């Protein structure tokens, strides 16, 4: 399979915020935040509204339904076990905190499913949506990982901190990605 030339389009920087590293894709202007702590790696990469619209319309969403999702702040999310012990998370335990506001839970796949049914999104498109999101709960052996979308109700250009929680070795752990920023409409 051919590969894109691996030109260095992204520039990583050690962020001033403890534990969070950021990068910017200089071609698209879309940014990534990543942290790695106690055996888990969590990474959020901005998905532009146009990308979100295009992805779901290509999978059977109406323009109106795709617009509903694109109105959220959407990120490609990677969770990976980079340690030596199994880890387990529940997305329902994670919280995001927009600047100056109380913590909120991430809208679940079940909540989205109800919205899509109300909007008449066909079953095949709803199945694609469900599998395109990061799993609601997952247990990772060392080396396991997933990539999927998460969405946040944050205004364009707004920032938030994501607090993620997982269990390993019988203990609960937590970490955070700080100053994650919602992409602009025209990114």
């Amino acid at each position, binding site marked *: 399979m051919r590969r894109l030339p691996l030109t260095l389009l992204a520039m990583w920087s050690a962020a001033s915020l403890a534990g969070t590293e950021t990068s910017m894709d200089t071609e698209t202007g879309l940014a990534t935040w990543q942290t790695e702590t106690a055996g888990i790696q969590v990474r959020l990469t901005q998905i532009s509204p146009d*990308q979100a619209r*295009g992805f779901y319309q290509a999978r059977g969403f109406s323009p109106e339904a795709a617009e509903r999702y694109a109105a959220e702040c959407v990120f490609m999310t990677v969770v990976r076990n980079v340690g030596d012990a199994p880890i387990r998370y529940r997305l329902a335990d994670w919280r995001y905190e927009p600047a100056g506001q109380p913590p909120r839970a991430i809208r679940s796949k079940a909540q989205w499913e109800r919205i899509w049914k109300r909007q008449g999104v066909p079953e095949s498109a709803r199945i*694609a949506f469900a599998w395109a999101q990061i799993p609601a709960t997952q247990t990772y052996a060392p*080396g396991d990982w997933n990539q999927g979308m998460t969405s946040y109700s944050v205004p364009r250009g707004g920032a938030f901190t994501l607090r993620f929680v997982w269990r390993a070795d019988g203990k609960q752990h937590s970490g955070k990605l700080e100053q994650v920023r919602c992409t602009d409409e025209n990114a």
Partner: protein
Amino acid sequence: MKMRNRLASMAFAVLCLPGVPVATAIAADLPPLSHSLTRQAPKPAPALKLKDLDGQPYDLAQLKGKVVLINFWATWCPPCRREMPSMERLSQTLKGEAFSVLAVDVGENADTIETFTGQLDTTLTFPILLDTRSRTMQAWKVAGLPTTFLVDKQGRIVASAIGGREFDHPEMIRTIRELLGK
């Protein structure tokens, strides 16, 4: 922490465009494919009875006596697309042995899948089965894509992997050969 340069957003953008050659969407921003298989206590595999792209029925129960690698995937899942050629290489490496690969696609039709496979540099020779309503994936308790199971000759799940893998890695081949020898 060691960070790698990524091209995630570019890859995602390309995935959104129908008709854009698939191969250009693959390489970009993915964590490195690993090669671990997580061994587990053997347990009977759930039923897997599905049709392939040509409507030919497949039943896992009829593959007893073989080691079977079952991969749940979809064409829009970047790690799934990326690991697919290595699954074909694995299949070729173990050709003639009591080993089969079954790729189970979730929620897509044959046309969509063939558009993807037709754009690969590799011709896939293993069956691609259609789990149109994702019922089989639910029965297998798959939570995310890709997820892969290794089933032994007795029809028991003995190992699994979540996330993209390099299936023709020597460690993977060694694990499968161990099972073939049992």
